[in-house]
């Protein structure tokens, strides 16, 4: 099935690149969504089976794949609306956009399921390619700059990951096997050479931070989310981040079973804390709503990795948090397009009184804000609370204190800007040109946010089991 999926997606993607007919484009993209759904169902039914040697439908992969499929459906819907509404649309840009979208979703989904570190790496490379096509959609100078930075940083990061893999093969040399699958690595974790493994982890971690949006390489991701069209930015800040997480997490599981556990947690903890710090620095200052949302993602990835670093209940909380964050943040980015349609601007000074112009949309923004800042009725409150508890359990009280302080600042800054957008009238805003937007465009966002709340507050036993299964190999 995975071959059918890959080949089918590549064919659909290629057809999209070369066919510029409107009807054909949309038929193809929906065909792809059908394929994606079918594949997801197939993966769920073949739980824990391995296909084509390199892909295993394991618990973490299934969770992430489900997340990706759920998000990709509204992503296509909103891309459709976005492309049809944008002024500079050409058949070529539309075809490129949807082709890249198909390739991106396919690559990300395959990376989730890959059980071999090199295969994950290959798909990561492919996401860079497809994501850059999406970021460059507008074809202006700033988009070009954002794309250039994204490509360059991602290329360097991919190189880092590759170097890490090379080091890993050195660390693995004593075993005498050339199979770098996670399973094999875990089986021989006692034989790994620690000093090479240390270097390998460091390089792989640093490399994947570009996709995850964590401290050293987060920079280009922020620019990319700023310049990409709303639906593409939603994918970049949800499923692509999940891919970075999967890349780090699967390797972390290997490292955690050696004596490097403490050191690796420390490295992750440092990067996570610095991410939170950077997020706090910029959330206060940033005036561009889209960049603010991107920094908020940096903050949440910091929290997720803090959970990983703290261990214990933190592992569970981290996976739950990243899934919930994907839902909420993607709905926020989907909503951004409506916001932009109303105000034709993304500077917070020029936005305001959104409730008056688009009540449903404003409601989505409000609910998403409540969820993103993890206020109690939202699902992310639970996961964030558990992350704090894991920090508490691991006796990191000072760290917890500083983190809470930074979060307070972040929430303050976020609330200040969001409330400005929702309630305070903008200066010199011409009301006559405001388009009337159909409330139906917000339905998918409501579903995503509501789903996140449901999953957080009352996680279905199957999700709990899947998460527990994914962290089974970690020492508690």
């Amino acid at each position, binding site marked *: 099935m995975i071959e059918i999926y890959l080949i089918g997606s590549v064919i659909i993607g290629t057809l999209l690149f070369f066919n510029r007919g409107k009807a054909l484009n949309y038929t193809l993209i929906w065909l792809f969504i059908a394929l994606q759904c079918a594949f997801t169902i197939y993966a769920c039914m073949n739980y824990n089976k391995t296909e084509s040697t390199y892909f295993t439908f394991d618990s973490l992969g299934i969770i992430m794949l489900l997340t990706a499929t759920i998000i990709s459906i509204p992503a296509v819907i909103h891309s459709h609306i976005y492309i049809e509404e944008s002024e500079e649309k050409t058949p070529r840009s539309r075809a490129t956009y949807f082709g890249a979208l198909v390739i991106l979703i396919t690559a990300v989904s395959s990376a989730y399921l890959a059980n071999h570190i*090199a295969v994950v790496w290959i798909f990561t490379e492919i996401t860079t390619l497809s994501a850059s096509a999406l970021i460059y959609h507008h074809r202006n*100078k700033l988009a070009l700059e*954002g794309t250039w930075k994204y490509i*360059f940083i991602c*290329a*360097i990061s991919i190189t880092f990951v*590759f170097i890490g893999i090379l080091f890993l093969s050195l660390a693995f*040399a004593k075993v005498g096997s050339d199979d770098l699958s996670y399973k094999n690595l875990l089986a021989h974790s006692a034989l790994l*050479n620690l000093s090479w493994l240390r270097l390998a982890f460091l390089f792989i971690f640093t490399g994947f931070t570009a996709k995850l949006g964590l401290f050293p390489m987060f920079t280009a991701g922020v620019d990319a989310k700023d310049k990409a069209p709303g639906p593409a930015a939603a994918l970049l800040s949800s499923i692509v981040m999940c891919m970075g997480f999967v890349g780090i997490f699967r390797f972390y599981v290997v490292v955690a079973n050696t004596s490097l556990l403490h050191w690796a947690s420390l490295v992750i903890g440092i990067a996570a804390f610095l991410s939170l710090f950077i997020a706090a620095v910029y959330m206060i200052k940033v005036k561009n709503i889209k960049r603010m949302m991107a920094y908020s993602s940096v903050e949440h990835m910091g929290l997720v990795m803090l959970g990983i670093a703290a261990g214990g209940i933190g592992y569970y909380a981290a996976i739950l948090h990243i899934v919930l964050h994907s839902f909420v943040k993607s709905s926020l980015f989907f909503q951004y397009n409506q916001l932009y349609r109303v105000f034709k601007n993304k500077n917070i000074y020029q936005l305001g009184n959104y409730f008056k112009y688009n009540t449903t949309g404003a409601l989505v923004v409000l609910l998403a804000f409540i969820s993103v800042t993890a206020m109690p009725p939202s699902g992310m409150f639970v996961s964030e609370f558990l992350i704090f508890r894991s920090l508490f359990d691991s006796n990191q009280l000072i760290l917890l204190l500083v983190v809470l302080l930074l979060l307070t600042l972040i929430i303050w800054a976020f609330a200040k800007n969001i409330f400005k957008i929702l309630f305070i009238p903008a200066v010199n805003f011409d009301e006559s040109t405001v388009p009337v937007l159909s409330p139906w465009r917000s339905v998918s966002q409501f579903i995503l946010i509501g789903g996140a709340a449901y999953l957080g507050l009352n996680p279905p036993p199957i999700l709990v089991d899947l998460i527990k299964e994914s962290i089974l190999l970690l020492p508690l």
Partner: protein
Amino acid sequence: MLQVLLIIFLISLFYLSIANRMTTYVNVLALQGVLLFFVAFLELKSINTLNLILILLETIIFKSLAVPIFLKYVLNRNHITREAEPYVPNFVSLIITTVIVVTTILLSNTMEESYLDKMYFVVALSTLFTGLYFIASRRKIITHVMGYLVIENGVFVLSLAVGNKMPMLVNLGIMLDIFASVLILGIFLNKIGDVFKDIDVNQLTNLKDY
């Protein structure tokens, strides 16, 4: 013989750090491609012939011919000035490159390892960090690309070191090489040349929160 080639490779880094003209950079890159061709041949003699041919073709055709030619084309087409215009004086660059090499040698001493020729490790890591240093210290976008190509060469050296046991990794390295180079060089450098008339990295600093 291998050792000699690798040392020449290291020396080429020093030369790169004091080079003034853009064409020198391109020529050094071509030279490194040729060096890698021989290193690959000597190191990987024992692997699958087809695979070996692929690797050798990649080094000689892609690294030492296609890329330099394309770079020269870009230089001419976009009327890029011939000077490298680094932020720091060449003298300092040389010192920093030396420090990098010395540090990697020291670092390699701390690794208790018998499976790897330390020469590879030193050359690869110092090439990596020198490349990163070039990116960080040069002004033009095209020099960034060249820095990236230097990094790729370093990674290639490292992948050759383990290539005997895991040829797959060398192939992956080649894939990265071609993929990233084509993406960066082919698509983007051209595009940037079209959109921005003068390819100075200072023009690409508008996306910021500072």
